[in-house]
């Protein structure tokens, strides 16, 4: 059983859910669901994760973003890239490019099609759970053949 998570790097409940997920041996698939009006840095942060992915460091960036939601401005993103040993100039060009934003938009649209209206929303099989309730809900999922992470 894979737990599909629609989340946003500026959303505090998503960070709380992420912290819980890291204690569990689950198969997790993360999808971006940035809502710019509520969380203005969610979109740049999601593009940063995608730019890190281009250098093989999606999950390292994902974890670094959730670990410090108070620092999501551009210089903070560059500092994370540097700390992770990425080529910062390339990272910056890619995160501002169309490919990263299209990838994020693709996740967002997939979420909308699945009925997502808030973050975090998780899908466990056909069941959708949203908001605070996700944090308890993930503890009840059978680990199955996990852990593994995809996005």
């Amino acid at each position, binding site marked *: 059983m894979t737990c599909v998570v629609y989340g946003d790097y500026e959303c505090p409940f998503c960070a709380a859910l992420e912290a819980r997920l890291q204690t569990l041996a689950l198969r997790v698939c993360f999808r971006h669901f940035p*809502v*710019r*009006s*509520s969380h*203005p840095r969610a979109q740049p942060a999601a593009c940063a994760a995608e730019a890190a992915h281009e250098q093989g460091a999606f999950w390292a960036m994902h974890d670094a973003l959730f670990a410090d939601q108070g620092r999501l401005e551009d210089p903070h993103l560059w500092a994370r890239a540097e700390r992770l040993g990425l080529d910062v100039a390339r990272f910056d060009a890619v995160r501002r490019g169309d490919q990263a934003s299209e990838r994020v938009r693709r996740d*967002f*649209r997939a979420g*909308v*099609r*699945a*009925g*997502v*209206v*808030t973050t975090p929303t998780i899908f466990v099989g056909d069941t959708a759970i949203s908001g605070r309730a996700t944090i308890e809900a993930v503890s009840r999922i059978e680990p199955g053949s996990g852990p593994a992470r995809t996005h």
Partner: protein
Amino acid sequence: MPVVAAGQPAPQFSLQRPDGGTFTHADLLGKTTVLVFYPFAFSPVCTDQLSVYNELLEDFAERAATLYGVSCDAHYSQTAFKDALNIEIEQLSDFEPKGAVCEAFGVLHPGGFPQRALVLVGPDAVVKWSYEAPSPSELPGANLIFDALSAD
């Protein structure tokens, strides 16, 4: 009274626009309109709903549909709400006489506020689709609107 059903003509109504003008039945003609009835400005659930719909304005525009938020809040409160959310969806006020339009569309909650409901009206001012959430705390996904727009 349940929410106005598909196939019924939209009722005569008058809502207040943020500039003090009115939005009436005549404004429905020749366009595809989605009226998004929500309980209260600044309530947390409405905030999520309108923020997500706002992300999709381009997609709605591609389908020639215009969204409006409708509540019984005064237009000053609605404008403050819209500005706080940083959204573009125009807000229409059903403040005076309070709830009259919500009642005409069958979405007035006994508590004096709109049910969380969506009403899609075609260019002929006939309701094409409507939806009322099982409870005001449940958010209708934008997928429901897109499905209804694609149902032609």
